């Protein structure tokens, strides 16, 4: 019998038919291939967080293969001679083993740590983008809340993670965590005893943190990230205003092939940067800290950067203890429990608070330029100023040391700065926004300054303005309406001059795209500017 020749095209078609017979995949798959995504560089910040998370999962699985989450005391006998013979927990010994005696182990450990720092940093920057452009407005409030939760979970993932090696630094962090639990009224001692399995430090905490760090927290993170992306997909991405763009459509490019390829390329680039940092920049050199001993600490004991704001708030808090008869509330309670709680619940409530204030019940798919909502920018800058002062205060001993400033002066500067700087940031940023708004309106009304100065017969000097739209019979520009998008303010933005430097920031093939509000400049020919009068 003659065998039929296998036709690859036919085989593929048969396979596709088989899939569709079973899953009815053709229509939804076409919808996916065709889905249109708007494009802007600022939409990629959240992706960095997603890609870092993937790197975290991959490198984290590798680390679990060598890490021993046990507080059993052992004498170190590895190749780092400075610690040989020292009594330490198995957790610390296995972290050292992972760093020194596993091929590429240190590389993977540093990759995990750098990816975690990048994960948190990109979440913060992504949240700032979403906040300042109003992308959290209806219908996206829930996704904003999930985003805040992701930051909170990332915070705990990071804290449980850097506690695991059980080195001198992480033990100090655990000690403070225990003190924060103790500061809770009524249940404080009970909570600390429950979590540490008795008196601090006990012998259970590393094992408990381990399961939280490798199973519970990443599980919830993974679930929330899936929901986060699913909602973005369902609600379709927001877009900037611009020509053809309305609240009812999405202007961009289809997911396949161009958009998806850009995502894939960006992932590899982010991965590459993390790998480079993991090899080149040392992070958390645990062998320098030694095993955790309750009696030992060095100065400059800083947590990872995303925990520093809390450490800073704890440092700045004055020693105000409140007494209720025989009971008392330690000052640690306010920054560490109330402060952390407020810093997460207030942002969660913000979308509804703003909508209530503006009596706004509509759905928004077009972003707002920050200047168009000065109060929101003011509030955001206030929050950032607060975060910045708190974070810097978390390292105020290092600043005091490096710049030869008195430590107490740094504390007082932080205390005063925490009260003064946020309102100042609010005021300044609101004024800047209003100024930018005014300038936009001015250009729309009078046109772009050409830099050409004309002398009138009576001796007066005037600058000639290039109208952006039609002019009336006297040659005066007809004022244009502001459309929520970039207003060209320089002559070369409307095609008077080609970009001066070609290649790196501007595409070589084509001049910089003319911003197109209020109307696209369609003429491709460039005319010399002349005074028409």
């Amino acid at each position, binding site marked *: 019998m003659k065998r039929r020749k296998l036709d690859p095209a036919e085989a593929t078609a048969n396979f596709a038919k088989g899939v569709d017979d079973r899953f009815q995949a053709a229509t939804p798959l*076409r919808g996916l291939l065709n889905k249109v995504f708007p494009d802007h560089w600022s939409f990629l910040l959240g992706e960095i967080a997603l890609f870092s998370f993937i790197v975290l999962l991959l490198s984290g699985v590798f680390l679990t293969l060598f890490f021993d989450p046990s507080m059993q005391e052992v004498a170190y006998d590895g*190749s780092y001679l400075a610690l040989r013979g020292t009594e330490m927990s198995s957790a610390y010994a296995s972290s050292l083993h992972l760093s020194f005696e596993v091929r590429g182990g240190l590389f993977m450990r540093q990759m995990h740590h750098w990816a975690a720092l990048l994960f948190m940093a990109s979440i913060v920057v992504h949240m700032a983008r979403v906040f300042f452009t109003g992308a959290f407005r209806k219908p996206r409030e829930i996704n904003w809340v999930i985003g805040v939760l992701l930051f909170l979970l990332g915070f705990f993932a990071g804290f449980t993670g850097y506690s695991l090696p059980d080195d001198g630094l992480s033990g100090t962090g655990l000690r403070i965590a225990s003190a924060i639990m103790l500061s809770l009224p009524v249940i404080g001692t*009970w909570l600390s005893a429950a979590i540490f399995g008795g008196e601090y430090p006990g012998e259970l905490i590393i094992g408990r943190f381990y399961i939280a760090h490798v199973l519970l927290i990443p599980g919830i993170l993974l679930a929330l990230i899936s929901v986060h992306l699913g909602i973005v997909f369902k609600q379709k991405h927001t877009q900037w205003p611009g020509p053809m763009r309305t609240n009812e459509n999405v202007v961009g490019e289809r997911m396949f*092939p161009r958009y998806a390829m850009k995502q894939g*390329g960006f992932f590899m680039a982010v991965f590459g*940067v993390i790998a480079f940092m993991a090899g080149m920049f040392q992070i958390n050199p645990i062998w320098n800290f030694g095993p955790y001993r309750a009696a030992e*600490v060095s100065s400059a004991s800083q947590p990872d950067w995303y925990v520093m704001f809390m450490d800073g708030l704890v*440092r700045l808090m004055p020693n105000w203890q409140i007494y209720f008869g025989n009971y008392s509330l330690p000052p640690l309670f306010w920054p560490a429990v109330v402060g952390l709680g407020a810093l997460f619940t207030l942002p969660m409530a913000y979308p509804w608070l703003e909508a209530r204030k503006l009596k706004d019940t509509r759905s928004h798919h077009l972003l707002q330029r920050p200047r168009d909502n000065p109060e929101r920018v003011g509030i955001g800058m206030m929050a950032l100023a607060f975060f910045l002062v708190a974070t810097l205060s978390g390292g105020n001993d290092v600043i005091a040391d490096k710049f030869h400033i008195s430590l107490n002066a740094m504390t007082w500067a932080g205390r005063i700065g925490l009260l003064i700087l946020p309102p100042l940031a609010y005021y300044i940023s609101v004024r800047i926004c209003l100024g930018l708004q005014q300038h936009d309106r001015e250009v729309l009304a009078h046109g772009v300054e050409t830099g050409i100065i004309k002398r009138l017969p009576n001796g007066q000097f005037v600058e000639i303005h290039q109208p952006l739209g039609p002019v009336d019979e006297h040659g005066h520009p007809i004022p244009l309406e502001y459309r929520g998008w970039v207003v060209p303010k320089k002559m070369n933005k409307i095609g008077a001059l080609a970009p001066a430097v070609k290649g790196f920031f501007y595409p070589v093939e084509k001049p910089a795209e003319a911003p197109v509000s209020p109307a696209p400049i369609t003429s491709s020919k460039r005319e010399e500017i002349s005074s028409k009068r």
Partner: protein
Amino acid sequence: MTTLHHGETGTPVDVHDPKLTRFDIVKEGLRRDDIEIVTYESQFQGPNSKAEKRMVRSISLLFLISGLFGLAFLVFYIVWPWKFEMGETRSDYYTPILGVSLGISLFALGIAILAWAKKLLPHELSIQQRHGDPSSDDERLITGQTMMYVADELGVQRRPLLKGAIALGMAPLGLAAAAPLVGGLIQNPHRDAEPMMYHTGFDPVTNGGKLVRLSREDGSPIRPEDISAGGQLTVYPGIPGGATNKYADSPTLLIRLRDDDAATARAAAEGDKNGRNKGSMWGNFVAYSKICTHAGCPASLYEQQTNRLLCPCHQSQFNIVDNAQPIFGPATRRLPMLPLSVDDEGFFVATSDFKDTVGPDFWERP
């Protein structure tokens, strides 16, 4: 518009028409998904233009660079001496080499894919309608009524006995489900005869009723002449495991003050308001708990000139010639003082446990 597909516009085409190109069929799909392609144009003048060839060469080069460094990573991973050794050895460069080679390889791959997408593929501008409208009133009504119907069927509203029974039946079961999950964790922090919050390794109970000696980290006891004036030493309870984390609240700072400072400190201790520090000094020696009363870090930076102890975690500062009262920072409570004496063999002992509570503050501290 009421059509079969949501909001679709334009005229449908027969996709089986043999005259249609593949792009025509793609466009029909776009029409069905309510997408309009506004512009879709190649970035190059014509097929096989010089610019395109140049771009293809650049992208190919990037892929080759990626492969080259990927290979380099693999080779170095295998052949470079990786085992850590003390001192300056070639193994010091193992991690940086891995980082540089893998970093460049991945980054070049990323840039290659990005350049392919951005520079080779046609520029396109498509518009898709959002269809973000809420469900129609009819749909909302039907779904709402369906849910109410389900509730009616269950008839909980009509059968109040059932309602009460469910509440009474489910609540205990719910608690029963939660209890074993939480209950196993709960420990009474005040249950022991020597409650853990108020008890350190210096309590004679840990030493079979005998007074506990002060010892160094290696367990050796300390004589007064071991410390010079103005000197200080971290001491631990002289019991088995006294210097380990099992007695994490016990580390203590033993300080030998100069004569004038000692006089000031003794006057302050004797004049202590609640009398707990009375008679706790021995000669010019004073011992304070090292565990900060703020957040539990070791308050271990001793400033000899100003007689202050500073906690490096949150910069609480304590005045050691005034019962270690807090004078700056977030701590509210003084460091507990360990009552000192010297036994017949001439070694330091603690005459009792700390009289103040050691460690961070909490709600029910006496």
